[in-house]
């Protein structure tokens, strides 16, 4: 078991009503630390993010490749609210722990959908103990989707294994109508599966098995 580096972006939100603001824009019920998905009106994924309250502020840990789109998505909806967004990605390293790794100094520990997450000040120069290939094998075994593989802007959360992050009973959020309709009609179109190799169009290629997203109807 080991520690893998998460190529993260971290946006720090400061202001009032932050959790309610994020709750209205994402699929999970956001009332404290959690993992949630920001989606477009068509329910396509913008980013899968960990919500980490930090004192009176809230850190949003997403993936680096989605940072600009996510920041724009949030900023557009601030309107008159007194909320500021600060990019603190360069100040911290983020790791996902699979197992029981030593907790780095000054780390913020968060229970993420992906595993135990450590957010560590960059000055500690903490290092991963796992390579991406090991992380991928772990994900294949446990059917865990990940950024750039299964989690892309061409999929909706139900199609790529993020169903636990779509709260079934919360109120309106961006993309909710589409996701609720898919669920109520039992038609989500695609689903994440693990298949023995060889696999046509794998999203994550493993040594013996791979992850892929297949059509369900």
């Amino acid at each position, binding site marked *: 078991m080991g520690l893998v580096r998460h190529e993260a972006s971290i946006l*720090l939100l400061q202001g009032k009503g932050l959790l309610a*603001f994020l709750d*209205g824009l994402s699929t999970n019920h956001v009332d404290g630390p959690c993992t949630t998905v920001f989606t477009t009106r068509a329910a396509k994924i913008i980013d899968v993010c960990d919500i980490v309250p930090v004192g009176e502020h809230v850190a949003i840990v997403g993936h680096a490749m989605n940072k600009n789109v996510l920041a724009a998505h949030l900023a*557009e*909806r*601030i309107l008159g609210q007194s909320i500021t*967004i600060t990019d603190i990605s360069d100040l911290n390293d983020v790791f996902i722990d699979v197992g029981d790794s030593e907790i780095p100094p*000054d780390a913020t520990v968060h229970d993420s959908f992906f595993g135990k997450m450590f957010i*560590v000040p960059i000055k500690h120069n903490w290092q991963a103990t796992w390579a991406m290939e090991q992380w991928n094998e772990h994900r294949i075994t446990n059917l865990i989707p990940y950024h750039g593989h299964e989690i892309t802007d061409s999929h909706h959360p139900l199609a790529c294994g993020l169903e636990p992050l779509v709260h079934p009973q919360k109120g309106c959020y961006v993309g909710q109508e589409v996701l609720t309709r898919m669920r109520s009609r039992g038609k989500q179109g695609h689903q994440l599966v693990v298949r023995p190799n060889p696999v046509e169009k794998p999203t994550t290629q493993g040594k013996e098995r791979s992850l892929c997203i297949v059509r369900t109807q």
Partner: protein
Amino acid sequence: MDCGTCESATPLEVHRPDEVDVELTLTEKATTMLEDAFGDDRSHALLVGVLSGGCSGYMYDLQIVESTDTPCQELNINGFRVLVPSASSHLLNGIEIDYVDRLMGGGFKINNPNASSSCGCGESFS
């Protein structure tokens, strides 16, 4: 975590759309319903705002208020004080406030020429 709040991490620049002078209309039915709600007291105002969230990204927010701390444009429509937050003016210019009288889904309804889509319940738009 190093949250940067005690250092010099720069806040991201949030694009704030330009404020526009809002024009807004009330239908006859909406005016009648507001007359019922306000009575002869015109000290209060109708606050027409926008919140983030909802199925389509933004939600309408109608309130009767005495005053507000939010910077607003103040309009006089059919004898009513109507307040529109400046930060939402670009989303609300040209709207028509109507009243729909039916058992389910009735109430004030906003017809918004700026909305490219709205959700089924009509409370949310984008």
